[in-house]
């Protein structure tokens, strides 16, 4: 089993905790509590490995850090995005300025996290408030605006609703698949290297597998 670290960032009340809750518990209570500091949750998903012949699913585990959105808690964020494999940067599509806050987060991540492999996903939440054709669309951020930005910055991009659940699972699923892909390539290249070095040298060192799998590690 692989484990990946995932962090949620974004302005207060955009729905970070609601998204995590939807993903972990598949529920939505209308009144979530505000997050103070950060909250930690974990959840596993199954990934179907299409490239290999085995039909068995791989289980991966997300270690999720849901942070508080108020400006003052920002100084804690580096601790949570450090070593993260993926960051979900959330904005509220009914609040224009929440997108610019999200963009600040994207900039910070790009500047502070050296990891090329960090997956950043821009998430517009509260889609349910925009579909209603009858009593007024509350949308304040156009899909294209965010999409263009996401393409420019090379981010994943989705619009979701934690309330209805629309899109939430897919986000985590596709992030999981991407991360799994990266991990597999990494392992393959490592194996290749190991095999190569085994040929030229008699002194083969046993390498600790790079997975985080507790069952395969002896300690």
């Amino acid at each position, binding site marked *: 089993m692989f*484990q990946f*670290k995932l962090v949620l960032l974004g302005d*207060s*009340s955009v729905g970070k905790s609601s998204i995590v809750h939807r993903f972990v518990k598949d529920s939505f*209570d209308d*009144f*979530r*509590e*505000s*997050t*103070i*500091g*950060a*909250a*930690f949750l974990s959840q596993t998903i199954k990934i179907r490995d299409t490239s290999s012949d085995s039909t068995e699913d791989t289980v991966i*585990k997300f*270690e999720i850090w849901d942070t*508080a*959105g*108020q400006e*003052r*808690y920002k*100084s*804690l964020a*580096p*601790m949570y995005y*450090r*070593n993260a494999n993926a960051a979900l940067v959330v904005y509220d599509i009914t609040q224009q300025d929440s997108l610019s806050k999200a963009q600040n987060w994207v900039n910070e991540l790009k500047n502070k996290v050296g990891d090329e492999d960090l997956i950043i996903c821009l998430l517009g939440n509260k889609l349910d408030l925009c579909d209603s054709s009858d009593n007024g669309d509350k949308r304040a951020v156009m899909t294209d605006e965010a999409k263009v930005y996401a393409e420019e910055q090379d981010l994943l991009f989705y619009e979701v609703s934690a309330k209805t659940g629309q899109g939430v699972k897919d986000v985590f699923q596709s992030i999981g698949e991407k991360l799994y892909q990266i991990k597999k390539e990494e392992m393959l290249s490592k194996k290749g290297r190991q095999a190569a070095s085994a040929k030229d040298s008699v002194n083969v060192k046993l390498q600790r597998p790079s997975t*985080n*799998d*507790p069952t395969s*590690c002896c*300690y």
Partner: protein
Amino acid sequence: MDTLVGAESPSLSSSEESLSLHCDILADSLFDEKSLLNFFNEQEQRDFKTSVIRNILHDRNYKTLCTLGMSNFGFVSTPLRKECWFELLSRQLRVSQGSGYTTNKGCTREHRDENQVSLDVQRSFTSVTDEGRKEKLRKLLERIIVKILRRYPKLSYYQGYHDVVSVFVIVFIEGHDYDDECNFLSLSGMTSKSDDNHSNGAAEDKSNGVSSSTTDLYENETTSKIGFDEDKLLRCVEAFTLLYLRDFMMDSLDFPIDQLRLIPEFIKKNSKAFYKKLNLDKIEPFFAISSILTVFSHELKPSENEPDSLIFQIFDFVISSQSMVVPLAMYATLIMEKKDTIIEAYNANIDNFENSVDLVHGVIQQVLVPTRCAEKIWKQILEEVRSNPSREHISKYRGLVNRYSTLLTTASGQLHTSYEVEDVIKLLEKEIALNSKRKTSKAHAKLHKTNTMRTFARLFSSRSFPLICKVSIFVGMLAIFMKLYRDGSIKAMLPTLRIYLKKYQCSSFAGLYRGLNYVWLDPLHELLKNPSLPRWASKVSRSISSSKDSDF
């Protein structure tokens, strides 16, 4: 300080007088864990304590009231608790009439954080099931917070403050429900239709901007005061905010983080091995932040008609002991109580996390979340803290928090002290100034990474920086110059200096300036060990290293 005691109430009958005299003597030991009273059943003990408290309140015997608040059952019931909190807090923070901080003044300008307040209020009282009631509680909560912020615009609101205030709201509102009530509270289905619609409309507006709902709040102000005593509630929240929560209400997290650092110190004192195991010497104790910022009210939600709820007893204790060290000590106790589970989870997860910071934070969160509602463990912790109330004396940790901190001044655990609001405002202003100084110097350190002169200037100007360090840096520089003078070459010195500068810069990044005190003393030590130095210098070095040991 004791002028209140027995000064008034000349009309007391003699029997009442003698009872209160006895109360005074008995209160010290009567309600502790090993008291004789344990032969009676719990209800009898409660009834007895209730009547004792009534008498004490009547006499306004402040000291005894504090003792009672710290013993078993706290202030026993909500009606009593309300009176006791008011009695204590209004003593601790004195607001003289006409001082400019009296009740109806200063609520004019909108505070910069009101939008955040509204976002959090909309997510408060989640456990209240009656929708109408919930709406009422929320409105009251918002109104109180906004009033405090407008009255003291220098305070910055933080997410979590609303949790603390909601404890006071619940205590003061209970019982003011369906009986003698006014506009504000009678809503739950009993008011006219139009009034109800009006309030719902206001609630919906909030998400778009507060202005409409806040004006609405103030229109209601006059009418809502009848009956339930909002002024008393406001006075309590005001005192608690200024005396106990001041450190948290700067515009950054620096001072709260300073406070959190006491927790590992307490743990270390208890069990050094456990402290080492959790790497608490290297890891910042951010995992405790929500518990401390909310005095546990984020974890233990208050609810009506549960006077024994532990959150109330925790507040009883904190207010009676006038101490914000208590929550920190309680958190450390909580960790110690859960030690075995934590170690187990730590070992089980050691390969699941990539680094020890995540590991420790994740494990502690996972272990402590189930304890949120576990009555038993909180009872134990309260008992523990009750039996060793002044165990953790702050003076030892003086260097860890800023000198105007609540921990060293208004909520230091020193009993029976009281403050004029003006003096507390002065403390607040000094603390804010110190906080922004720290912020700018941090920003400078980041901007001018190579500008050492500034760093030196900062160290010497920073008031929180202990004198001993200033002296030692000075001596150190002197030693450097002397060495340079003798060797005639600066080159040999550069590598070591660079290392220490780097170390220092790293440590000041992201608030991790914990290592700072040590860093500067180290090079000095090395330099002064040099035998070629004159005798007086090595003497100084010895005296410095000994004072270093005692100081840190």
